[in-house]
């Protein structure tokens, strides 16, 4: 064997050894780092695994909260919270469902942050531990400390299933400089859709050719998220489906057709489109607003801190109430955002450690910090009395708008818990877009949407008998 073959052989053996090294050392079979800390009082800290969907500024705030807990209560009570960013809320739900289906409790986290679209995935699972149970077993914790609307938003058949940690409403964001340029009062954002149509028409700017839009008045295509408020607020309170939008049981059909609420909305929305200032944009709308390509847009209050940060003096930012469909739509807006759910995963017996962390997140101070860093409004009523809060609001009046809007809204308005929420979202968006761009009739559009959404509910109920 000459030197070359010898060298080649040594090389291949080395690769082989390295490979075997990985094979043995790496987590070949088991899950990553949640080591067996299923402590039963053996002295080691209990690890609480928490899946969430907060990134960017929100992610930083969450990391800070977790660090604070670990350094204080965590050290005291031997609890270590491990936070894992899992992508968007829909991604967290998808991963959870995987573990729930395969019936593998050990693949589940202790806590997971979900929004309305993920609720149906976990609601009926035996592995989900309703927060109500934990509340009842802890005499020190009182649900009355929390904003009633938020508690109601996460109640199913009378029981609180998830802890409403990050509560938000939808908000109208607008460019005050653009208002001034167009001769509009920057302190008076549009209050109804009719006014929105009027303002949008005045704010839109065309290119020199008179056809291409350089800046829209308002940009966005309504989907489930907006409709929950725009339909919910009509006649004081309304619903999209029966069973109170799915909070009293699996919804079986839509009611926005028979109650005429969708039709009312669509007629008003068409006027906004007719003004010429509506941009049917669905992606990156926030970026477009920041870049000055649209003068108004509507999104969650949870984006407030991010928008303020990104606008950074480019123009003066304004925030206003979400426009009402018409003068009869007095219900206000829906409380959205997300909640944290608890799971039985053979870790943390009685979920005591998880409950400690939850309580910490819901404390007045934590909620203040979270509010300041994000724009979600404080769920703990105690926060509103803290001097730090009053101070913050005085210096950042925009944050107050969301809170005022919340207090002016009916807590009866609910998010909708229906199956196929992802598809439903797009059906609604497409349906409205088609109506506008192809000039279809209101009745026709309502028919189309109700038939496809009813079909989703039928299919689901057929396959998953309650």
């Amino acid at each position, binding site marked *: 064997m000459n030197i070359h073959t010898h060298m080649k052989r040594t090389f291949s053996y080395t690769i082989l050894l390295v490979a075997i090294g990985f094979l043995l050392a790496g987590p070949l079979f088991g899950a990553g780092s949640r080591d067996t800390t299923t402590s039963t009082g053996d002295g080691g800290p209990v690890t609480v695994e928490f899946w969430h969907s907060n990134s960017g500024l929100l992610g930083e705030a969450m990391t800070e909260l977790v660090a604070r807990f670990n350094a204080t209560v965590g050290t005291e009570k031997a609890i270590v919270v491990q936070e894992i960013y899992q992508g968007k809320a*829909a991604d967290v*739900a*998808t991963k959870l*469902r*995987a573990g*729930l*289906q395969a*019936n593998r409790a050990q693949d589940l986290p202790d806590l997971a942050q979900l929004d309305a679209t993920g609720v149906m*995935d976990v609601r009926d699972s035996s592995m989900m531990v309703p927060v109500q149970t934990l509340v009842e077993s802890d005499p020190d914790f009182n649900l009355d400390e929390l904003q009633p609307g938020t508690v109601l938003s996460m109640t199913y058949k009378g029981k609180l299933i998830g802890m409403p940690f990050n509560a938000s409403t939808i908000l109208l964001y607008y460019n005050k400089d653009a208002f001034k340029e167009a001769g509009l009062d920057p302190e008076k954002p549009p209050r109804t859709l009719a006014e929105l149509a009027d303002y949008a028409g005045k704010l839109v700017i065309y290119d020199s050719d008179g056809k*291409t839009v350089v800046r829209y008045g308002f940009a966005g295509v309504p989907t489930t998220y907006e409709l929950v408020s725009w339909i919910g607020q009509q006649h004081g309170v309304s619903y999209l489906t029966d069973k109170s939008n799915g909070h009293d049981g699996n919804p079986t059909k839509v009611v926005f057709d028979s109650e005429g609420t969708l039709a009312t909305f669509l007629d008003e929305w068409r006027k906004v489109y007719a003004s010429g200032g509506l941009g*049917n*944009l*669905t*992606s*990156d709308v926030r*970026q*477009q607003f920041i*870049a000055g*390509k649209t003068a108004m847009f509507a999104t969650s209050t949870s984006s407030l801190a991010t928008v303020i940060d990104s606008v950074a003096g480019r123009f003066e930012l304004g925030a206003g109430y979400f426009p009402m469909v018409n003068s009869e739509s007095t219900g206000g807006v829906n409380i959205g955002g997300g909640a944290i759910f608890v799971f039985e995963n053979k870790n943390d017996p009685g979920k005591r450690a998880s409950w400690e962390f939850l309580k910490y997140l819901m404390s007045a101070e934590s909620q203040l910090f979270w509010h300041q860093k994000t724009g979600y409004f404080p769920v703990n009523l105690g926060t509103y009395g803290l001097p730090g809060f009053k101070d913050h609001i005085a210096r950042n009046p925009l944050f107050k708008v969301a809170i005022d809007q919340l207090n002016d809204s009916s807590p009866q308005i609910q998010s909708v818990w229906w*199956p*196929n929420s*992802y*598809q439903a979202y*797009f*059906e609604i*968006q*497409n349906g409205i*877009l088609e109506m506008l761009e192809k000039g279809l009739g209101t009745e026709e559009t309502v028919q189309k949407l109700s038939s496809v959404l009813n079909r989703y509910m039928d*299919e689901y109920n*057929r*396959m*998953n008998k309650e």
Partner: protein
Amino acid sequence: MKKSLSPYLYFVPALVLAYLFSYRPFFKTVANSLSLVNFSGKIIEFVGLENFQSLFADRNFQTSLVNTFRFALFFIPIDLVFCLVCALLVYRKRRFNALNETLFIMPMAVAMSSAALVFKAIFNPTIGVVNHLFGISVQWFNDPAWAMFTIVFLGVWMAMGLDFLLLVGALRSVPRHIVEAAEIEGAGTIAKFFRIQLPLISPTILFIVSTRLRDSMLLSGPVMVMTSGGPYRSTQTLVYQMYIEGFTAGNYSKGSAISVVVFVLTFLLILLAFRFERKGVFYQ
């Protein structure tokens, strides 16, 4: 007798894998597509072709089907023409051609998700460079008419390394004497291309077409990273919808039915590809 057992042992790993990850899932998927499956993945009842009937009547599915073919319709000609042009420019052995060839095959060094993120940024209507450099203002990710093209361009970019090399190889294997004979008889470049080169490299072209057709049926990665099926589902493809129905919505019957459709389509196209592989790739 020990000796007669061991040959089968050599095959065991391959067979186990083939069963576990190909055949078994295939049959289960077919079974699921013919039944009602609940949220947890258990079959509830057998319903025959009902899932397929409702699938084909569903506008959402029709959109996926149309989009998948729309992608192929744009992707394959653009890919072919672009790679042919590049191949024709550099297939002869001249100075600088080695450099140019390297430039053309660089995309092969880049993985799909990295490329998709870069393309997402450069086609961004607000801050991206494409609109700026070409002086246009296309809303790439908000306009249903154009969003598909971002996927097509990414697809061409990812595919061109291989397709370009195949075409270069094919062009180089056209016998010199035939080409020279044509030149002597006064044939111009165009005639030379269409009458001599094109027919002789046609097996390779057909191979590329059929392979890429099959790949088009399976398109999902770029959609997931760049557009999430939007805007307004204009980039939603078959496999992407299958992923949404199956994973995000938990609709296993529907997801499996879509899988079966994808199987049938790719099966037909694989057969096509096989027929041309033999002729296309092995040269003397």
